[in-house]
């Protein structure tokens, strides 16, 4: 580095001679910060999404790099949120990339004291077995007067309200066809 470039690289010099007299922008940049780029600029793709916390429905932009979520920001186009997110919405990237997230099926057998591993397909089949057995054991065809009941009161469900409409639709459709009536949701609470 020559003396001249050293001197011209001095922030005070740049502040006094450049376009940034307050020293809050270009003049304050170091070589290190000059080389930085926003994660939003280098993302491979961006998905238009919605915050999963409260019901305001703030727009989110989900940036993806190498198949991983690299940044989540407020969507300035949203007429609801105008690009803003609250502390929870702003922590959405930490939510979806949290190291505490469970990514594998866990199984606790009756009277067990520890979690065990279980294959997803095996779990799905075991659950199907149990649903059908519980349904058979508790099935009610008709009431005392012979009117149809077509149901089981042996199965319950309680869903959160971060489920999609399409998910709730399939949940209700399947359980109703199964005769499972005791299907509830956070909306009751």
């Amino acid at each position: 580095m020559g003396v001249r470039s050293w001197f011209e690289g001095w922030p005070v010099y740049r502040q006094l001679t450049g376009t940034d007299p307050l020293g809050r922008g270009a003049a304050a940049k170091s070589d290190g910060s000059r080389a930085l780029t926003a994660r939003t600029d280098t993302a491979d793709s961006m998905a238009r999404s919605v915050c999963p916390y409260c019901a305001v429905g703030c727009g989110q932009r989900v940036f993806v790099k190498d198949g991983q979520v690299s940044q989540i920001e407020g969507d300035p186009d949203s007429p609801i949120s105008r690009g803003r997110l609250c502390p929870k919405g702003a922590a959405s990237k930490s939510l979806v990339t949290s190291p505490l997230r469970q990514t594998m099926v866990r199984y606790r057998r009756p009277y067990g004291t520890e979690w065990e591993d279980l294959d997803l397909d095996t779990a799905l089949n075991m659950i199907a077995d149990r649903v059908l057995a519980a349904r058979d054991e508790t099935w009610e065809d008709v009431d005392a007067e012979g009117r149809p009941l077509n149901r089981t009161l042996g199965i319950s469900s309680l869903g959160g309200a971060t489920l999609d409409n399409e998910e709730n639709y399939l949940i209700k459709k399947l359980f109703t066809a199964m005769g499972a009536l005791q299907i509830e949701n956070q909306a009751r609470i």
Partner: protein
Amino acid sequence: MAEAHPVGFQWVMEAKRRGAKVFHVDPRFTRTSALADSYLPIRAGTDIALLGGVVRYILDNELDFREYVVAYTNAATIVTEEYADTEDMHGLFSGFNDDNATYDQASWRYEGHSQNRTTRDSETQRETAAGLENESHGAPVGGETERDETLQHPRCVYQILKRHFARYTPEMVERVCGIPQEKFFELARAWTENSGRDRTGMLVYSVGWTQHSVGVQYIRTGAIIQLLLGNVGRPGGGVMALRGHASIQGSTDIPTLFNLLPGYLPMPHHANHPTLDEWVNSIAHPGQKGFWGNARTYGVNLLKAYWGDAATADNDYCYGYMPRMTGDHGTYQQVLDMIDGKIKGYFLLGQNPAVGSAHGRAQRLGMANLDWLVVRDLFMIESATFWQNAPEIETGEIVPERCRTEVFFLPAASHVEKEGTFTQTQRLLQWREKAVEPPGDARSELWFFYHLGRVIRERLATSTKPRDRALLDLAWDYPTHGPTAEPSAEAVLREINGYDVATGRPLASFTEMKDDGTTVGGCWIYTGVYADGVNQAARRKPGSEQSLVAPEWGWAWPANRRILYNRASADPDGNPWSERKRYVWWDADKSEWTGYDVPDFEKTKPPSYRPAHDASGVAGIAGDDPFILQGDGKGWLYAPTGVLDGPMPTHYEPVESPVRNPLYRQQANPTRKVYTHPINTLNPSPPQEHSQVFPYVFTVSRLTEHHTAGGMSRTVSPLAELQPEMFVEVSPELAALRGLSHLGWAHLVTSRAAVEAKVLVTDRVTPLRVDGRIIHQLWLPYHFGYEGLVTGDSANDLFGITLDPNVLIQESKVGTCDVRPGPRPRGQDLVDLVIDYRRRSGNLVHRYPPMVTTDVADSSSDQEA
């Protein structure tokens, strides 16, 4: 709102910047209070007394928007002379039945109506939470009414309302709520002065309002004020529910609730709906006015969506496959049934009742008494580990080696790992694009339920049992894609929208639905979200490039209307009430309704239209009746049917209260839903003895940095760091009284549990002077539990289970407690402490507060009267 819905609160600040006055009513001073023009501290559970005071102020001073009130509400409608008011009956309305604690609603009916049209008796309505059906339409009532538009008839609704609220004076508001009279007047004046032709006022509540034994009536009181002031159906007006979950509105529209089917159709009841005709007629009420006259169409389209080709006119579209309700099958009944060993399996889908539901101990003991439990979540939540880490392990009430519940934990996909729609709090559907694949075994609920259904149907493929036909005939052929065979959410949305069976063309509006099986539609109120084969919920035209209404961002039900009943934004002749509040109006030149929003009215029905005497359905709605889903086309100041605890709101004390009701002898809601079960002990309240054992009022709410039961926030490091610890806010006065020190420990005790928390001594909670004495209130966040990065006792453990009779939502925003310094005891000492409190307050097992207290004359207001 600034705490729990901060980004929505920016619009309150916008309004304030433009001159709006902001009032904040809350038991605790929050960031909302700090930014409001005025803050009113209130005793938890007394909102009806405050709002009732505002109703009285409006009526006494004749400050109602008279032209709007006469034309658009039922103020002029005359009620039968059989009706008797709480004024004359110590707080009960006419028709109360002591045997089952319900009202016969017959005496509340309009004059000239032979009977109300509800087919179900009040007890069945309570057991089946029938009030929820009214989220999209009013309770059934005949359209022909007798009216006195001078509002002078002594039995017109206006005069009844005036008499009913006569005792809600400013002095009484002060006595009940602890709100000084000058504060009350400030609120009442600002509200009335900022309503009318040129101005509108908005009422915003968070859904803690619903978590009371009188929750529905809280909201009714707000709606009465807004109707009297002409603030419904107009821009800047309304009653805005700030709901707390991303798609909780969607969860009632397309419900996973025991008593509802998509689009607010009732789940069939074994006695009332044995056949398709009886089911749809109970909804449509042939002869009634309004859009619900088409109920048969909505019902048939749903059945066709469920059972496809198998559903034909000859088999009543498979109506016979539907399971039938016989009573209350709600989540709290289920939990008690789990404890009693009646339930075998339980699915928890992104929900954490061990922390989030009232009476956490009952929740955990219920889960510990199942054959199997399936938990689907992002994180290892308390409801998955109750057998390992619950507080009941320490007390010996749950022993892992003796707990038989088999637990499957299945990891779920996050909101960025799947596509689909959320419905936010203003009925707006917004489609989310998928950003990445879910990790490992994580899957969407769409995947799980589609494939569970697929496996079950494969198992039953050769079954000949009649009960399996409903599963085998189910229309369950959704296209899948990708390495995990994820079902297409868009295909499901298309079915929800509905389509023409022969051509597959998506329906543009529910008015295109047919009742002959030629169209399919899974949720009639959502029809239009896939109009023209376009995913309208995915629209993202920037807000900056559209009008303030932003109609091209997402899609709102019904028919992309952003303000419901917006015909009321024009006067009876169809002209805007004022230029300033112009929104939807009649264009006489084009002979149609027009405006900034989709008119909530038949487009070409002129304001001058008057129905024929015997007209029913949509044709029965006059050109100046904006409330098109009400049987009489009017906004209801008075509910002649359908609200189980009375045609008008009445202040009752919370079920647990340290105060005798100052307004009436009747202490608490006489029709509340009560569960008498050994685990569900309740603290005594006046006029019962020993209420002083639990002398303090506690309430709970959210922190900005946490979300509900903490499963999506105590697990997230930045949020856990911002709010790392369970705490309780107490006033300096209470701290001195009970020897609590700032940053020290305290524990709260109820007849259910003892919960410990760090003490925050603060002026944010203030002692209130109520009925001549000082009432102390404590505040806690309800987010904490025993899993996650930050842990603490769960505030919801403190609550018992008592529900609102209309919708079966629990009273979990107010209760009574004692508070003591220091951490709570551990193990058996903890059990003994709670037992000791129960003993001192009168051995509360099987001893419940009386439903009716009108024979106990110790309310000083009665003496004064």
